[in-house]
């Protein structure tokens, strides 16, 4: 869908935008935007992450599957990554995820990577507005109708205080419900028996 198409009626559609912000730059810029009393779109849900290099394509796809209208990853300026090259990895990951979205039939413009240095409070607000406007122009993400969380930013389950380290789950069946049902709260934790399998 191109941006030339007429925008959806604004009053009927409030886009849900997810911003994955790195602790050191974009999130600090968000703090600064707050301290500067800058106004930006309230549609943006900020997720603080240690480094944008941690972002995996599946996280971005899941955000859209769960009904986000736009997602952006905001990281440090080139050469400023606290972990040397995390933002460079994220740029590659976002480019890959855009291709995956296009294959599925979602507009890749719904996903973007931005450099937001820690000192750039106004830029943080500008990017938030930019992505919200873009989502408004593109219209609602049709996947939201069937998403496991129809509205709001509530978590399906409280976060683990001590999350287990990721480990390979070879030979274990993962049911679609484990990925999509709100009742199961996402993929089963390692050590749990897969759904439908007798002990």
């Amino acid at each position, binding site marked *: 869908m191109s941006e030339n198409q007429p925008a959806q009626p604004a009053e009927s559609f409030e886009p849900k935008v997810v911003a994955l912000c790195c602790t050191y730059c974009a999130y600090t810029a968000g703090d600064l935007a707050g301290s500067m009393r800058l106004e930006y779109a309230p549609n943006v849900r900020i997720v603080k992450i240690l480094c944008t290099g941690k972002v995996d394509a599946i996280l971005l796809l899941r955000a859209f599957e769960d009904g986000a209208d736009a997602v952006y990853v905001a990281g440090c300026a080139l050469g400023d990554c606290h972990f040397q090259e995390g933002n460079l990895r994220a740029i590659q990951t976002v480019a890959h995820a855009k291709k*995956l979205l296009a294959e599925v039939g979602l507009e890749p413009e719904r996903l973007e990577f931005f450099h937001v240095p820690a000192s750039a409070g106004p830029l943080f607000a500008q990017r938030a507005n930019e992505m919200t406007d873009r989502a408004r122009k593109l219209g609602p993400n049709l996947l939201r109708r069937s998403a496991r969380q129809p509205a709001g930013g509530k978590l399906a389950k409280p976060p683990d205080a001590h999350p287990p380290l990721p480990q390979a789950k070879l030979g274990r*069946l993962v049911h679609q419900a484990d990925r999509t049902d709100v009742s199961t709260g996402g993929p089963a934790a390692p050590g749990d028996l897969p759904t439908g399998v007798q002990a």
Partner: protein
Amino acid sequence: MIVAQRKPLDQIEAMLAGFEKILIVGCGTCVAVCMAGGEKEVELLAAQLRMKAKLEGKPRTVDEITITRQCDKEYLDQLARFVAEYDVILSAGCGAGVQFLAERYDDKLVLPALNTLFIGVAEGPGTWSQRCTACSECILDQTGGICPMTICAKNLLNGPCGGTNHGKCEVDGEKDCAWTLIYRRLEKLGRLDLLEKIQAPKNYAAMAKPGRYSHEAFQQADTQE
């Protein structure tokens, strides 16, 4: 390792037309390392297939399982209690894995999710290149550890040919001339004398398809029985 690449989603969608319950079976060995059919890639593919079905209003359930290897019966047996529930199995293994899976569960349609490319090495993150054509008679001892059967476009055993062009190949100017590489390597090793030896014609019968091999230890066990 065996290097593979995921098929375009449109192609996979076309294969899956008319099927509702899909089991994607990943492989945790070669294709997991080359980021084509391991646990993560299976999760990505499942998410894509779910999203596409929802957008097009098609009913579809996609379950996922990744086993250690699809080229060993022991691991394929792990799937026995699940396969009956599905309309179709989408294998994210290499060509060998798909076939072995289809052979083990021959009453179920097994479809390939990958295109298998070659036996190769990881050049760097995300890039692989071919190193071996499995010719069954290795001559790397004669060629400084560089395979003319794979790197040379003409499979020349006594090179270079007249088409070598300042270290590049006449067939494809982007590719290195295998025999220039071999010369430089042997020069570095002080073994240029190896180039004076004429290689006998290759025994192509040794790489006749389909190959089959039994380990010596097991051959002896057979004859003593």
